[in-house]
């Protein structure tokens, strides 16, 4: 009986292909919008998470200046006291729960090899940096302790630097000019791609901090200290310890605010991911409104259909159709119609999301739950908005209905 009714409704949808299609359009657009939004949104969330984990997971970054917010950092009224060797030494000596602690000072500098040149991010650091950032070497070796201490002119380069100067060739042992100094390449970093903010993470040159300070920065400052938490210590626990140690070594009295900031990359990752999720949800909800409009379209066309087929309803009632048979027939028809729209909408939505994921270089992340929900929701819309017209058809008086022209 139900199968028969479904077949019947397919026949009646086919009889009015253009009208059925126009009716479906509302649902198709609504579902496609919801699916595309949610799929692109969850792809973006994944991308953001992945990007931030590329910055380093369980990572705290200490820099000088007050935490971000009103008045800071780098306000005009503020003299920024840079981080120094003794801050790093205090952390290394007293901080528990850290896997790696590493200083890093950075600057954009022109790098030259032969006739080629490239503006690259030069980082002065030590041998713990790779561990702190969770970076790996494709070839070569990290700085030795003696190289770090003495500030030897050695460096590790990223993939972009290699390609610019050596193509696919091996850069090891080559000497590049960095600003007014030169350094010998001793290793190649694993490629990491771009961050979500469009920054090329492979356009980097790492050199020992002492060499950087002496030959490039011309001072003894440390811009950042990277602290990677060990497996047992959450960054939220590590952060107050770091704060205590630094307040102590920097002699900050309790009545004054920190003159440094500690950024928790894990929290930033979570915050950004949840912001993206919220955004996705809102866009999805807006798209959901168009589903409602689609539902009203279905109701409208079902009312037209019931009126048009009054005589048919009369015939069916006369030959013994129960009220519920008529009700079910039109309900099934509305449901099949909107379900059809839902399925077409899902396909279009996934296609749009697929195109977007290629264009925006985000992962294509269709969610089976969202798709199932869309199917269920479009069927529900058909039932809800089809119910009133169907009831109207079922309640017709067979005598009047048979007389209807």
């Amino acid at each position, binding site marked *: *009986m139900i199968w*028969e009714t479904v077949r019947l409704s397919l026949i009646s949808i086919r009889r009015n292909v253009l009208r059925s299609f126009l009716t479906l359009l509302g649902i198709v657009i609504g579902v496609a919008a919801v699916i595309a939004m949610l799929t692109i949104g969850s792809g973006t969330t994944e991308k953001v998470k992945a990007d931030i984990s590329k910055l380093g997971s369980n990572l705290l970054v200490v820099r000088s200046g007050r935490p971000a917010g009103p008045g800071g950092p780098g306000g005009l009224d503020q003299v920024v006291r840079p981080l120094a060797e003794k801050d790093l030494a205090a952390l290394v000596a007293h901080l528990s729960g850290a896997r790696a602690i590493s200083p890093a000072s950075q600057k954009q500098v022109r790098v030259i090899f032969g006739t080629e040149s490239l503006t690259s991010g030069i980082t002065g650091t030590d041998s713990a940096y790779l561990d702190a950032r969770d970076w790996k070497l494709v070839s070569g070796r990290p700085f030795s302790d003696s190289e770090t201490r003495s500030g030897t002119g050695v460096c590790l380069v990223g993939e972009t630097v290699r390609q610019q100067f050596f193509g696919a060739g091996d850069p090891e042992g080559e000497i590049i000019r960095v600003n007014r100094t030169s350094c010998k390449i001793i290793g190649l970093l694993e490629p990491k791609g771009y961050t979500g903010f469009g920054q090329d993470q492979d356009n980097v040159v790492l050199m020992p901090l002492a060499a950087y300070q002496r030959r490039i920065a011309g001072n003894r400052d440390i811009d950042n200290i990277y602290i990677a938490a060990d497996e047992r210590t959450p960054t939220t626990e590590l952060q107050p310890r770091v704060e205590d140690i630094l307040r102590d070594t920097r002699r900050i009295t309790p009545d004054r605010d920190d003159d440094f900031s500690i950024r928790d990359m894990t929290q930033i990752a979570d915050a950004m991911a949840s912001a993206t999720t919220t955004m996705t949800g809102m866009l999805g909800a807006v798209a959901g409104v168009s589903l409602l409009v689609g539902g009203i379209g279905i109701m409208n066309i079902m009312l037209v259909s019931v009126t048009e087929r009054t*005589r048919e309803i009369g*015939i*069916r009632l*006369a*030959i*013994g159709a129960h*009220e519920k048979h008529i009700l079910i027939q039109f309900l099934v028809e509305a449901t099949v119609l909107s379900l059809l729209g839902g399925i077409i909408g899902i396909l279009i939505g996934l296609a749009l999301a697929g195109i977007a994921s290629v264009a925006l270089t985000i992962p294509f992340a269709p969610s089976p739950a969202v798709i199932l929900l869309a199917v269920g929701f479009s069927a529900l819309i058909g039932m809800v908005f089809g119910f009133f017209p169907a009831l109207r058809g079922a309640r017709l008086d067979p005598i009047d209905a048979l007389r209807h022209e």
Partner: protein
Amino acid sequence: MPGPVLISFDKVWKTYGQGEARVHALAGVDLAIRKGEFVAIMGPSGSGKSTAMNIIGCLDTPTAGTYSFEGIDAGRLDRNRRALLRNLYVGFVFQGYNLLPRTTAAENVELPLIYRGVARSERHKLAMQALAEVGLVGREHHTPAELSGGQQQRVAIARAIVTRPTLLVADEPTGNLDTARTHEIMELLTRLNGELGLTIAMVTHEADVAAYAERTIRFLDGHVASDTASLEVA
């Protein structure tokens, strides 16, 4: 050889409208039709014959009085129970055929069986049998638009008899047909009446059509004006 009483009207009234606009379509009609009878119902428009036919076919209920069908007080049943009664016992043939458009002859004939919950293969078999009985073998896949008026009415008759009803209600079944087709249809109805013992109640306003029936009931102003054996009329 009429059988036991199938249909009986006991002081049946049907009133439409209120106050000044009040109209008595039926004004205390008493009537009985026995099983196996072939009855023609005649009368000018507004005489109450259509109202009587709607009540006989369990499409409508009396305002007052009792209508019984097979001993069931059909006038007191709700619309869904009357739908069931129609499905089980009554077949309908209309002047305008009333076939579902763009639906094949076989599918049209199967329709009442669907509402009975008959399985698909059984339905098809019964439909083919009914189509054979009305002389439409080979036309089962034609849609109404591809059939002549006479053929469409045959499909409608097949649809009416496929459930093996007790009663066939025919509302001017030949009203849209030419003389030759009219006689073919009337011969078919007469044959079904004779062979299947089908009780037939038929509204017509043509005396030569009414002549096929054994009995003619004439309505006038909501009353039965005459109730005679057809031969005397013809």
